[in-house]
């Protein structure tokens, strides 16, 4: 039993990391908005989904023009990522304008934003589906293959306890791109003027506005960055898994939100680690649960396993793994 778990462990880690990176970047979108507005932007999962579709559209367009064959795929990829990030970023700003800012102005209860975000999710899902069906006749879109060379890492010959690992070259791409995005974001938040303004607004909105920080603009920028990251991850997702549909945002949104909370919501590094951890946990559970329980519980319990871990973490550390405990002043 143990032998089998160890044998497939490297492969499970690789697969878990792939999924975890996707979770991590989407979780950052949740956490950034939460840090500043204390509101859960449930539409974020669907921004991610829209990003993947925009990416697919751009890719198909470039294919029809003939760019795909004439340019190296890395450049195609960068162009697609850039366009998608900008479009979804602007979309995020638009969503904030339409659905959240009017509520903020009116001092509405915090939870009412939940309703607008659910409304936005429904609208995004259906609008994307309409366009996809109108253009292709099917809303499940398969992307043209990019970076799908198979790679094998034969660690079996070095360490015979492990099986060899196989993965797609897109895994390396996902790995590198997310790390670049995460580092860039960390620099942006911690080193730049706008980042400082964001942190200030997150800490105390009113005081920040007294310090001549344009709070509304900071919120717009937060939405832009969060949504752009979400959209870019959508492209990564499309390239890694090859197929997208308008409903991928829903499940992924829940998972990413879970990841953000696991790491301590509002904390960007926490969201990264929470996402990666959740991906690893899930993959491990899917691969090993039935081996461990001798078939009583199979891979279908992987979400149960992940949620139980989450609940346990929150019981012993109620502010998440990396969150700071807030002492409530009386």
């Amino acid at each position, binding site marked *: 039993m143990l032998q089998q778990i160890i044998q497939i462990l490297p492969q499970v880690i690789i697969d878990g990391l792939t999924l975890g990176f996707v979770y991590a970047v989407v979780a950052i979108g949740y956490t950034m908005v*939460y840090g500043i507005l*204390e509101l*859960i932007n449930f539409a974020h999962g669907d921004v991610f989904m829209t990003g993947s579709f925009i990416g697919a559209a751009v890719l198909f367009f470039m294919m029809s023009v003939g760019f795909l064959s004439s340019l190296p795929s890395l450049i195609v990829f960068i162009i697609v990522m850039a366009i998608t990030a900008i479009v979804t970023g602007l979309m995020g700003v638009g969503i904030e304008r*339409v*659905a959240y800012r*009017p*509520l903020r102005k*009116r001092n*509405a*209860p915090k*939870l*009412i*934003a*939940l*309703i*607008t975000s*659910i*409304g*936005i*999710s*429904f*609208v995004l*899902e*259906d*609008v994307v*589906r*309409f366009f996809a*069906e*109108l253009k292709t*006749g099917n809303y499940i879109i398969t992307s043209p293959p990019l970076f799908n060379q198979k790679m094998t890492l034969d660690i079996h010959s070095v360490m015979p306890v492990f099986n060899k690992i196989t993965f797609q070259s897109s895994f390396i791409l996902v790995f590198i791109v997310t790390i670049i995005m995460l580092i860039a974001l960390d620099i942006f938040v911690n080193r730049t003027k706008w980042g400082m303004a964001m942190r200030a607004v997150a800490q105390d909105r009113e005081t920040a506005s007294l310090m001549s920080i344009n709070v509304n603009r900071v919120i717009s920028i937060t939405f832009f960055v969060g949504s752009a990251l979400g959209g870019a991850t959508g492209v990564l997702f499309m390239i890694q898994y090859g197929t997208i549909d308008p409903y991928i945002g*829903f499940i992924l949104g*829940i998972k990413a*939100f*879970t990841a953000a*909370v696991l790491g301590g*919501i509002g904390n960007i590094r926490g969201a990264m680690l929470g996402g990666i951890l959740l991906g690893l946990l899930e993959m491990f559970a899917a691969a090993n649960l039935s081996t461990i329980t001798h*078939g*009583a*519980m*199979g891979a*279908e*319990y992987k*979400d*149960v396993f992940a*949620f*139980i871990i*989450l*609940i346990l973490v*929150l*019981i012993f550390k*109620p*502010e*998440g793994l990396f969150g700071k405990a807030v002492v*409530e002043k*009386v």
Partner: protein
Amino acid sequence: MIFGWMNQFAQSKRSQIIFFAAYVVLTSLGLYFIQDSVIAFLLLLFSILILYYLKLSNKAKWIMGFLILAILVPLSASHGSAYQSYMEVGTLVGIYAAMSLGLNIVVGFAGLLDLGFIAFFAVGAYTYGIFASAQASKFMPFGHYPLPGDTFWLFIIAGALIASIFGILLGIPVLRVRGDYLAIVTLGFGEIIRIVLNNMDHPINITNGSMGISSITPPDFFGISIGNSSQFYYIVLAIFMVVMYIVTKLEDSKLGRAWKAVRDNEIAAQAMGIPLVRTKLAAFAIGASFSGMMGTVFAAKQMFVDATSFTYLESTMILVMVILGGMGSVPGVILGAAVVTILNTQVLTEISNWLNQLSTTGAIAIPDALSPAKMQRLIFGILLIVFALYRSQGLIPHKNKKVNAEELKKAASEGSSSPEAGSPSPETALVNESRTTGGVDL
């Protein structure tokens, strides 16, 4: 001037009653004669909302509301072919309204955000489903299953009890976490329950897994087998009335005030001697029990349960009803549940049918991808946004019971002077305005 006069007219009790009676008679006659008219049915239901705004004693409102719902609506709808379909809508509204009232205790009164509320509904549904079908004989060592239909009435209580036990189970880990962390724990709890129910077909077959439990025995009322929506309507109405009675009693009770205190400031509440643990657990348990009861009814009505009815989306839908109606406001929450349910089950279906009719007869040309039959969720999403933006405090916002200190003083010093005689005070004028907008929004 005219407005002032109209105000006065609208404030007078007699003219209100006359107006209301005329409205009810008109709409019920309308429904009676034009059976297919969904409008007449909805307008008749709307009378409950008007009733809520009338200047009548609470007792009179309760009696009239009960009469309209229990006698007038079924009676005037009963003559046409659409009878069962109206009653189905009524039943669903009742089920969701009771559940929203339950969630309202947790979210609205006690301020504990719960994203997995449907789990309790599932627990109630499965409790009846398992024992009222042959399923129980697959794992129970004793007893003869399915249990007969007259045990249904016991199962309503059993469903409530078991659901409240689950509520407490959820409450225990939750007590340590707060705010949005709580939201994710409850979400996780809801998903865990659903996935476990969907997978408990091995090693021991308890829920029959994803195949669901079918052929559930319908309830039995003194030898009459209950199978139609029109009969379930009365069961749901009765439970709903009980639930509503409990909630209105609870709201101003010691426990209710404790919940609100915990919601507004936990630390201050604790300092005032409110036992946090017990108060929060009570909220979870009572809220869950309403859901459990309705789950039992749901299983009996559908005669089939499987885990697809209890997804995370359903939990958010109930939360939407609560928030949309107005958190903490009992009439608001009921209205929210009614609006969302009626929209989803009846109005949007009718609209898409109508659009479809137009496109098949060629009045408007729509490409197939935009087929109106597929647009229900889109329209619903847009409506949610519109509602939330323009009624951001909820359809009927929550109002704390107010004691007007000045009037009390005045009354004490001047003896008796009725405030109704003079021109309306700013306070009542304000109330009036919120009334008109409240009415418009439906």
